[in-house]
């Protein structure tokens, strides 16, 4: 099943016609350096691939800092909760939005609860990996690379771009919105992706003359960063031109607001980032893999209000995003998934917060989802020796289902192994 979006086909054909093949990427590899080969070098890979399997889209939302799973999906009837969390458990149970008798969503997740009621939300509980690290940066890297052994350097979405898609020449196939740097999940030596912090300012303030000059300037740059610079500039100039067209035709059909109460350290404008994601999706830019981040989840201290605010912020942004996609008739194509480097310790600390934990639930949202609870519900009376929740679902099982069932990509090649599938999709595509 191959349903191509026209713009991709056209560009690849142009690309192949030009017959541009050589190996700056290999030079980067030889230097032991994770540089990205320039746009022309990648044409060699384009020749190996025959287009995308379907036109499904994935949006990953990173909840950075370690999201408290117990305040996201609240245990309503676990008698151990109050003892572990005398300060934090107070109203969280009584206010929670029940999804059954045992579990409820955080009271600020009203829009997501509305989607749950329509069968469009899957909650996968107890997600983690063996021998968890409690370091933010090590665990982020594990989730980004999909490799708890820490040998893999490329991101799982970057590898997906490099192996399952032909992103060469159409850099919007993978895009990080609302940030300035390439997220680790999208990094790959052989993949092209775009990073756009703010659409309104993404462009050359010096106008077309400057754009032409720097386009000529960033070509054939030597050195270990040469290919990286050249690719970044080529990607930027092409994306800026695409966005000019998109911005002219896109009319948001939802109320995206970042004017909610600012939560400390949540620097990203999640709603604005998701609005840009919606624009890229509904205007047919060929975008496939999107990544956005909401920070501020490292709640060691006075977690109560902070976490509730973050939940409310997430909920309003995701709610608007879904509504916009649905109004544009694109909701059937888009799977939204949350991830976070770890959950938090079930036992609260003296600062009214929680320290770094282990397993936690993930949310999968959208029309492709078969709503319900998946995985093994964690028990607060069977904690591991570090006082944390043991995992029951390897996070790569979730990746595998997304890759194989939603994107139709060869998950074994990307993840390096096969994991148990979790049937959270309503109509998984046939594996390639």
């Amino acid at each position, binding site marked *: 099943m191959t349903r191509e979006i026209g713009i991709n086909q056209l560009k690849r054909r142009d690309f192949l016609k030009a017959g541009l093949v050589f190996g700056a990427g290999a030079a980067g590899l030889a230097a032991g350096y994770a540089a990205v080969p320039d746009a022309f070098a990648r044409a060699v890979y384009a020749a190996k691939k025959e287009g995308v399997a379907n036109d499904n889209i994935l949006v990953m939302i990173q909840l950075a800092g370690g999201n408290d799973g117990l305040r996201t999906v609240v245990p309503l009837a676990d008698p151990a909760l109050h003892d572990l969390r005398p300060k934090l458990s107070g109203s969280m149970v009584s206010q929670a939005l029940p999804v059954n008798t045992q579990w409820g969503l955080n009271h600020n997740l009203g829009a997501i609860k509305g989607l749950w009621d329509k069968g469009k939300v899957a909650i996968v509980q107890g997600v983690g990996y063996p021998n968890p690290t409690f370091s933010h940066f090590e665990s982020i890297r594990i989730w980004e690379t999909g490799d708890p052994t820490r040998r893999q350097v490329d991101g799982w979405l970057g590898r997906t771009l490099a192996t399952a898609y032909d992103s060469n020449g159409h850099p919007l196939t993978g895009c990080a919105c609302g940030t300035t740097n390439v997220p680790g999940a999208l990094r790959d030596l052989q993949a092209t992706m775009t990073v756009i912090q703010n659409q309104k300012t993404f462009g050359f303030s010096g106008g077309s003359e400057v754009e032409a000059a720097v386009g000529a*300037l960033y070509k054939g740059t030597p*050195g270990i960063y040469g290919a990286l610079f050249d690719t*970044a500039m080529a990607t930027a100039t092409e994306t800026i031109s695409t966005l000019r067209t998109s911005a002219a035709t896109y009319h948001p059909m939802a109320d995206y607001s970042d004017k909610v109460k600012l939560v400390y*350290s949540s*620097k990203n404008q999640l709603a604005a980032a998701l609005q840009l994601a919606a624009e890229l999706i509904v205007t047919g830019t060929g975008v496939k893999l999107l990544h956005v981040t909401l920070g501020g989840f490292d709640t060691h201290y006075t977690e109560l209000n902070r976490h509730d605010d973050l939940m409310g912020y997430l909920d309003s942004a995701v709610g608007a995003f879904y509504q916009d996609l649905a109004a544009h008739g694109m909701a059937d194509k888009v799977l939204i998934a949350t991830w976070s480097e770890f959950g938090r310790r079930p036992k609260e*600390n003296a600062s009214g917060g929680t320290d770094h934990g282990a397993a936690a639930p993930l949310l999968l949202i959208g029309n492709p989802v078969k709503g319900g609870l998946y995985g093994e519900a964690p028990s607060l009376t069977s904690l591991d020796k570090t006082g944390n929740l043991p995992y029951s679902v390897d996070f790569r099982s979730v990746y595998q289902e997304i890759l194989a069932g939603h994107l139709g990509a060869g998950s074994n090649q990307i993840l390096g192994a096969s994991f148990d599938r979790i049937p959270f999709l309503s109509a998984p595509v046939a594996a390639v």
Partner: protein
Amino acid sequence: MRGGGGLNGGMSVAPSREKVAAIDLPVRRGLTRRQALAAALAAGVGVGAVRLLGGSMQGIGRPSNGTMDWISPLGSEGARVMQMLRRTSFGYTAAQLESALSEGFKKTVDRLLETKPVEPPVLAAAGTPGGRFSVALLQQWWLDHILSTATPFGERMTLFWHGHFTSDYRKVGDENFMYWQNLTWRRMSMTDLRSMLIQVTSDPAMLKYLDLAQSTGQSPNENYSRELMELFTMGAGNFTETDVRQSAKALAGWQLPQPDSYATVVVDKANNVTRKYPVYAAQKAGVLNPKRAFSGSVTFLGKSGPLDTQGVIDRILAQPSTAVYIASKVARHFVTAQPDAAYVKSLADTFRRSKYDMKTLMHAVFTSPQFNAGQSYRTLVKTPTEFMLHAGQALGAPNLSKLVAGAGSGMGQSLFDPPDVNGWPTNDSWISSNTVVERVNFVTAVMNQVKKSIPSSANAPQTHLDGVLSAQTAKLLNQATDDRARWFITLASPEFQLK
């Protein structure tokens, strides 16, 4: 782009006495780079870069390893001095460069290491009750000082420590504390790690940022304990979760300094809402409250017994991983993106033998053969702040601090506002489609700020790019017809982003 320089095609090559690149490498539309490579090699010309010395092109050589690389100019004293300045300061004016060139490399190193950082002027807003003033004031204050100080290396080290022992104004929520932290980091920047770590631990902004002010012996908060080992000293993998929990106990009990008084401030005029905010007459460190501390025995990094904060620090300093971790980070910031293990080990050994003296470590770094090795040339990417200030100073642009304070976030660096507790990333992480556009836009903005008084561009490729240019940069500079266009190409070039 202002001015009629004409940056894109169609302009004629300007005849010029200080002609930039006399050679026309066969890299043009319609040719693949492989064809260009073949043609260039046949003609006996190095493809990687065009090198200019003394106004004419010299030193063309074949790339030795088959990859396209910059041709290192570091065989010359002048190039070594310029690289030294790029890596230890925030760019230079023509006069500063001249003075360093006449001093020579060795004397420049001695001067940098032996001159104590000049104290910045007092920030006018400091002392505002509760530190309730805009972070932009703090950013501009620091940038103004960086631009005017006689000791920019002290500022470069202050920025290094700001990224290492990092804190952000959002979580700290008190700009007075952030201001104090900046003053402390500068004063301790070239001292020894042991005395630095006690100042870091008791720093009021740090006490808030990593929650140590909330931690008690009875119910310790692990945040500071973990990052002290993982990010500040030993690095991940060199300690256990038990060590984190045990040192969290040993470190507990610190509190914010007692305010001298409180001021009542109206926070909402319409509803007449007032709040009390702390007032400090002078900078203070945090205080240890024995009642909140842990008094029992802990087992930490292999030894058991009662342990206080100094004991935790000393035990961390007794671990070989600490010197290796710091030396590796310094090497990646000042020498090369991927320092080899033997080099890091030799720096670490020197550092540890000197009782963790930063001056000794930095001296070893700057005088090591690796610092001026061809393989290290252009292996570091300028941070946004370095890039912006270097560009502004090269042009002699006025009112730089305001422009720079506002422009950094799109490139990924806003002072006092690091992305997370790991501080800012380095090198390749600064390069993305978003950041290259923002860097170019900064050049446009800073050139607009210079207006008519733009300096001569005659020596710009020499003094700011070492005369080592890519074929494309050389070609565009050659085609440019006026100072504005040549400055634009110089500052927006990939070469200028490197140090």
